[in-house]
């Protein structure tokens, strides 16, 4: 798509605005891994349950509305095995490392948090290495 960079930029602005709403409105970090864990009772600390649940329910709701407005979005789905392996690692890793692309990447880096900048550099590098390895191994 020739305009995909523009969609990327606009989508990014929406994501950042949503995170800014959480910060300035509710005083919270819009970290999806932490909010998901909190919403499902898998985190001991964090925002009130109902708050986390509302944000998490909003994600597919907003995605659905946007897909309708755009007349559908195309997704290519990976194999079930990669979904399971990827999901397990993403779940464990984000809890161990206290955040994911939203919490460390968007919220933490814009705060110039050393922890978040380090985490983001590492998970980017590790993701790049993983894709390169899978390409070499023909996976």
């Amino acid at each position, binding site marked *: 798509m020739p305009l995909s960079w523009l969609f990327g930029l606009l989508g990014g602005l929406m994501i950042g605005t949503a995170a800014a709403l959480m910060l300035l409105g509710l005083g919270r970090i819009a970290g999806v891994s932490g909010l998901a864990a909190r919403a499902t009772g898998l985190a001991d600390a964090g925002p009130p349950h109902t708050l986390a649940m509302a944000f998490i329910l909003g994600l597919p709701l907003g995605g659905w509305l946007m897909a309708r407005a755009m007349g559908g979005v195309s997704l290519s789905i990976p194999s079930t095995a990669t979904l399971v392996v990827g999901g397990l690692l993403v779940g464990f890793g984000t809890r161990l490392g206290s955040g994911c692309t939203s*919490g460390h*990447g968007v919220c933490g880096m814009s705060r110039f948090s050393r922890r978040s900048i380090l985490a983001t550099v590492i998970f980017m590098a590790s993701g790049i290495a993983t894709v390169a390895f899978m390409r070499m191994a023909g996976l």
Partner: protein
Amino acid sequence: MKQISLALLAGALFGAGLALSGMADPAKVRGFLDIFGAWNPTLMFVMGGALMPMGVAWRIQAKLRAPLAAERFNLPDTTKLDARLIGGAVLFGIGWGVAGLCPGPAITDLALAPRAAFVFVLAMLAGMAAFKFTSPRQPTARNLTADWGGRKDER
């Protein structure tokens, strides 16, 4: 009620942004990480676009005593660069590279590609549960303070 609506609105705006940006597509995300192959740099614009409003928001936050719709700011105050942070980021990155999904897009995709997203989210919650039940319990007296992942580091 005001707080719940605001959280729902923020979540919906976040999910809509993910769907518009292309981050909801696992193949695009893997293309972005594939810098030694068929690299697709589009998602740089997503991160750049997201960082701009947040950069402004942090400047405003520094001037506020309290958030607009809550009593106080509950923000991470940890500064430790420890093995937990590094190990967690390494594992998360591997999972991200394998499937092309991180938590936000995965949960958003529950509405866009329900079957696949359900498998991933279930596995992700299992991974989170595995962490919860293998790590020492956190002190609950400090529950009000959230870390990036809603978790406070032990002291």
